[in-house]
């Protein structure tokens, strides 16, 4: 690997994770889940070592500055992920703008306002169960939904940025709602009581007490679901997103590719260098993007937990 890349890797991942693990270790808490990122990183490192030792072409000659700044090309050494990186970024942004307010609004309603008794309460319970079920629906089904409703019925266009963003947004919404609900539920009822007893309205209590306290949890959940969305491929295939585009999208109606789509395309290339080198570099880029998002989420949660004590 290039020294710059190693530096980025250490700064973004190893360092915060190490700090976190050390604190956990000192506080005597057992947290097996913490081992997962280390397994991934360790596995990658061992893979790189083995590849080097056997003289096998690992990802290192391929993941470089040229790779992240240029588009796909017929020649493996000139091929890059740039349009797909920007495409993924575009999709994530549009998705965040649409899906997060809706999810957080839904979570607030379900936790703070929805009736819990009578027939209305039962309707709410039904909705709640459905959200949990939707979280388990395979992503390819969301792709079908996106194709039929968003691309066709709403005519937002096959493979367009908005279509992709709305489809992925629907996909992550159940998870985002559930995690936001958990964050809101974790705010002690005593604090709401204190606020109401001061003559605060529902809205005041929500804005000044509940949301500030739930925000770190909500943020953590939403970042984790962003991480899920950025790696999704099946729904993008269903809505007809391009596997390869040569320039990044400039408007929301442009046809777009995303990192996993481009990786998928490289896997089917005839030239072997695409399938070994370029593809590995793409996977590593995607993984880096995802892991650094997760690291940010872990850091936010960690800081929040420290403030609580």
């Amino acid at each position, binding site marked *: 690997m290039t020294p710059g890349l190693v530096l980025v890797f250490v700064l973004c991942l190893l360092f915060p994770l190490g700090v976190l693990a050390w604190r956990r270790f000192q506080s005597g808490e057992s947290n097996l889940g913490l081992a997962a990122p280390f397994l991934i990183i360790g596995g990658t490192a061992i893979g790189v070592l083995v590849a080097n030792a056997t003289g096998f072409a690992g990802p290192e000659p391929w993941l470089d500055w040229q790779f992240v700044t240029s588009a796909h090309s017929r020649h493996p050494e000139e091929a890059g992920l740039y349009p797909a990186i920007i495409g993924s970024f575009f999709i994530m942004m549009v998705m965040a703008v649409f899906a997060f307010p809706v999810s957080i609004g839904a979570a607030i309603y379900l936790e703070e306002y929805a*009736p*819990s*008794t009578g027939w209305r309460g039962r309707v709410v319970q039904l909705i709640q169960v459905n959200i949990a079920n939707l979280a388990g629906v395979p992503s390819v089904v969301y792709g079908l939904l996106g194709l039929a409703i968003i691309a066709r019925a709403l005519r937002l266009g096959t493979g367009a940025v908005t279509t992709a963003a709305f489809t992925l947004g629907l996909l992550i919404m159940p998870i985002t709602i559930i995690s936001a609900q958990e964050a809101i539920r974790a705010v*002690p009822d*005593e*604090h709401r*009581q*204190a*606020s*109401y*007893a*001061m*003559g*605060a*309205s529902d809205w*005041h209590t929500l804005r*000044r*007490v509940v949301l*500030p*306290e739930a925000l770190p949890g909500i943020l953590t959940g939403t970042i984790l679901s962003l991480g899920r969305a950025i790696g999704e491929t099946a729904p993008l295939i269903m809505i007809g997103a391009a596997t390869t585009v040569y320039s990044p999208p400039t408007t929301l109606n442009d046809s777009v590719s995303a990192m996993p789509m481009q990786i998928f395309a490289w896997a089917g290339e005839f030239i072997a260098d695409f399938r070994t080198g370029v593809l590995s570099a793409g996977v590593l880029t995607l993984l880096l993007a995802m892991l650094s998002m997760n690291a940010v989420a872990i850091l936010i949660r960690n800081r929040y937990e420290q*403030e*609580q004590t």
Partner: protein
Amino acid sequence: MSNTDNSLIEFGVTGSETEQTPETGTLTEDTQSIISTRGLDVWYGDDHALQDVDMDIPKNRVTAIIGPSGCGKSTFLRCLNRMNDMVETARIEGEVRFNGTNVYDDDVDAIALRRQIGMVFQHPNPFPKSIYDNVAYGLRVQDKPVNDEIIETALRRAALWDEVEGQLDKSARDLSGGQQQRLCIARAIAVDPDVVLMDEPASALDPVATSKIEDLIEELAEEYTVVIVTHNMQQAARISDKTAVFLTGGKLAEFDDTQKIFENPESQRVEDYITGKFG
């Protein structure tokens, strides 16, 4: 909102004009009552938690409410500032007159009411914000001006100023339990309410912190009406002017001058309770 706000203030103090029945604890001396309940019943679902309570709470005095646990003390307190509105299963009948206005009338705004009747809870529950922001919370909620002077005054009245001076931006979570409870009192009185309700404010505290809170309550009575629930009879005897004894089933057994309740109660059951034969 401002409409009902005014209606609560405009009504004169009329509580003591209501008809008097001896054993339900009407006033013997000529103090005005600020809150009067008449035929107050509360159900949680089918559970009858409070039965037919008539009580006149005197202005600028400390009224203690004692009784075995589960007898409805907290329920009674939470009726006075309509905190029971938030319990979905709760059903309330009867009247709670605050300065003559029934707070359960349709045109009374519970939010405006709670701005005049503050509350301190059993467990200290400061917000995870700075000390300053905790005290300022009520003022901000009510769109009243916030300045250092008001914050200082509230903290002084809550006897906390000397311990937190110069560190108002510290998190309220870093205070001790007793300090947190006094912070909650400062938060409640910063908005200058008429009445302060306290639900076993010292039950989670050590003896030193408890005696600080007790001293504080006696001082608060100079400016506010204090209604305090306690399961500690000595505490009630020490700090209150009037004492109400609730007995199991949510019935008000006796309500009179504290001295009378502790020295010469009317009913045998109250005497048994006071002398520790049950409860």
